[in-house]
């Protein structure tokens, strides 16, 4: 059996699946329930200054048959009294000494930071996470993402915390910034032990088009919220990779954002995360999803021969390059498996209207299977993405696999095209119908 236990910047846990700081970690009751079910750690719902929450707090993006592929919230940090949280934290640690309990914190002044760090350490917290992410409400008061977006301010606050902290300190980054590596660097410079990312993305998920007000609605008005759930995973993955690829960056990363399955977790790990945090999926399906997460990860590790989490962390990083390092000689072409095709012709419209006019129809009512016009196929993948049948359209390699040439190599060899007549320019000789061929209606 692979060993799922982790030691994240000194914080130990039986497995890498942690609850993100959010409603599922509002109380000791919930965290005990989660640990009881098999979760490895929990980042307590952010503790800090007194707040007042509004009523009507979430809104979601539903897509076709699926609900909540994206969730948006305008909730603030915890509104429960600090002393209740501390008492409960102490109790959780009594029952679960080997699980990771991390206190998420957000206050304003240096004195407040010093005090609250001591408070949570006294309550038994195994670590501290600094919430520099909240993109609504708290930032209007100069906290949350207001800090996270200013690397120098972030660094100063990290320094304040490091002056007193005895347990490891994680800095949680906001994605609402043009380059995530700046705050990641600042966290390191401030002396933090680890980073976690991403917090929610500033968003409006929709508008009530009858009453002209975005969701969620608070007495006829709304405000921007923070976006999370499966829809944000691609953004979170990219930012995770960006941080992991900072040269000489050695802080461990806790990956967050849209994780719902063991497969999602593996993806984050392969791009550099050594633990993962989950919020929306638990808000949607409850703590029970751990029953899929742990065995799923275990079975993947067995299949791949990984014995520890550390062995798999960052495995996809060497294959994640800048564009200029991709092989321009590699060529794939779409291929339709006629035995699987159901004749929906979605690939035809997609390529015809949205790509390169490289798919043809036979015009035969009995045989609706489209065909690929090989000379026109640029190998963009679109048809294989829209095809509703698994493995029906595959992309087949058509180059000999022997030549290798990148934009970077070309630049270095002074081999890049200078104008469009240059035969080294792309797109040359590609057949495109005449504009007027498109007209079907009389005019």
């Amino acid at each position, binding site marked *: 059996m692979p060993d799922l236990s982790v030691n994240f910047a000194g914080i130990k846990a039986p497995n890498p699946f942690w609850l993100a700081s959010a409603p599922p970690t509002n109380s000791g009751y919930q965290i005990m329930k989660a640990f009881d079910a098999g979760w490895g750690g929990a980042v307590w719902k952010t503790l800090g200054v007194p707040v007042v929450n509004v009523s009507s707090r979430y809104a979601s993006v539903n897509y076709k048959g699926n609900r909540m592929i994206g969730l948006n919230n305008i909730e603030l940090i915890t509104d429960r009294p600090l002393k209740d949280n501390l008492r409960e934290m102490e109790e959780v640690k009594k029952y679960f000494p080997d699980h990771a309990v991390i206190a998420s914190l957000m206050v304003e002044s240096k004195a407040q930071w010093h005090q609250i760090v001591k408070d949570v350490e006294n309550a038994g917290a195994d670590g501290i996470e600094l919430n520099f992410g909240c993109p609504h409400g708290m930032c209007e008061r100069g906290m949350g993402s207001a800090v996270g977006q200013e690397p120098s301010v972030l660094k100063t606050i990290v320094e304040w915390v490091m002056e007193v902290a005895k347990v490891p300190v994680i800095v949680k980054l906001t994605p609402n910034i043009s380059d995530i590596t700046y705050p990641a660097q600042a966290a390191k410079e401030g002396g933090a032990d680890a980073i976690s990312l991403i917090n929610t993305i500033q968003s409006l998920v929709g508008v009530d088009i009858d009453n002209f007000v975005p969701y969620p609605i608070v007495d006829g008005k709304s405000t921007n919220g923070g976006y999370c759930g499966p829809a944000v995973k691609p953004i979170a993955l990219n930012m995770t990779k960006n941080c992991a690829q900072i040269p000489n960056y050695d802080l461990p990363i806790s990956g967050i954002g849209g994780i719902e399955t063991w497969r999602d977790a593996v993806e984050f790990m392969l791009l550099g995360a050594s633990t993962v945090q989950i919020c929306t999926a638990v808000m949607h399906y409850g703590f029970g999803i751990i029953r899929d997460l742990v065995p799923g990860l275990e079975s993947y590790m067995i299949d791949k021969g990984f014995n520890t989490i550390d062995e798999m962390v960052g495995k996809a990083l060497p294959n994640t390059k800048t564009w200029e390092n991709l092989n321009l000689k590699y060529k794939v072409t779409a291929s339709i498996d006629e035995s699987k095709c159901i004749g*929906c012709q*979605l690939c035809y419209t997609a390529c015809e209207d949205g790509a390169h006019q490289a798919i043809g129809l036979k015009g035969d009512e009995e045989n*609706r299977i489209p065909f690929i016009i090989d000379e026109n196929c640029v190998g963009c993948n679109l048809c294989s993405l829209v095809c509703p049948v698994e493995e029906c359209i595959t992309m087949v390699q058509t180059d000999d696999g022997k030549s290798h040439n990148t934009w970077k190599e070309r630049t270095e060899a002074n081999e890049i095209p200078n104008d469009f007549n240059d035969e080294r320019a792309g797109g040359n000789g590609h057949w495109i119908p005449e504009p007027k061929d498109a007209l079907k209606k009389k005019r």
Partner: protein
Amino acid sequence: MGEYKKPKTAEEFEQNFSQIKPLMDASMAYYESSRCLFCYDAPCVTACPTGIDIPLFIRQINNKNTKGAAKTIYDSNYFGNACGKVCPTEVLCEGACVYNHRDAKPIEIGRLQSYATQDAMQKEITLYQPAPANGKKVAIIGAGPAGIACACELSLLGYEVHIFEAKSQPSGLTLYGVAPYKITNEEILQEVEYLQNQFGFKICFNERVDSEKLVELEKNYQAIFLGIGLGKTRFPFPMEKEMPNVIGATEIIEQLKVNHLTTNLGDQVIVIGGGNTAMDAASEAARLGAKHVTLAYRRSKEEMGAYEFEYDLAKAVGVQGVFNAQPLEIIGTDQAEAVRFVRTELVDGNVRPIEGSEFTIACDAVIFATGQSKQVDFLNKIKDLELDDKGKIKVKEASFQTTNPMYFAGGDAVNGGAEVVNAAADGKQAALGIHDFLIA
């Protein structure tokens, strides 16, 4: 066998004849519409006799533009709601859905269609505004789906339309023939009322057009549409005398549709025939509480004209099929007590009785579902109107104009008996033919 008790109250009738395609609720419609792939040149559309833009209306349902969906449907088919429930979708749109090719359940197009149209009907949404009156008048004979569809389209174009209907209620065999577990009478009438409210055509009930009336119509109207459907049941052999428990399928079904609770068939019922009407009659007999329903067909099971799913429906309520059995005579003096059959075999494509293989089945009622006659006598009264050798009215393909230029025709009277959807398609198309004829 005999799983149904004879219904004594309206509730019991509803239970025995519960809807096989019940109305979807909003979430079900949302989830089902999410599955549609929005196929290019979608095969479901090609398979629909009225050519409804199915992927479009399903997408509209999914986008919560239910009104737009209803409009898309009615633009092609004025019996949009009824068709969603009564069409043999298994062999039409749903049978053509691409999902069938990957052994997945096809989209429930019929139910989605009724979902959208029901919504529009219940909210009494006005989808159409007829053009200003053009001063021309058209008479329609028969308020079946063909006649009503024709009336809608003509009214939309500005014609004054009067329908003459022999019966006391509209929609022809949809009301008087289609099985009650497919659609309720209320729902059928609701749709006609919904259409009439928007298009304003007039229906004169209890008005059977005869030769005298024809003269009057020819004088007062610029064109006449024949949507008269078919006639009474055609028996396979002459009945020596009438027996009260030997009945034609269309006649007994009409009785059952009008009087849900007073139709009594007894415990043992024999239905003779192999078409869809036979399957309906057998199912209905079982649901009315008959203990043994025998479906007797003179050819083999495989040769039945009925759709497979219709036979499955009958089997599911306990109907027992007896194949290669040809009826010879009805046994009984004042009442049928049994039917004598002879076994048959197929020789060179012809059904031949096997000598010495006679057998009898006892019964309390015999239903003949052996086809409907054509209304040849009435049609022969129209000057220059030509019929084919089977008694079907001859029409031009695109315009539905008959050999008498002022007469147009569509529906069962032309196709010899098909589905509601075909009649609705014909009626609309014929209206365009009439428009061309009168405006050009």
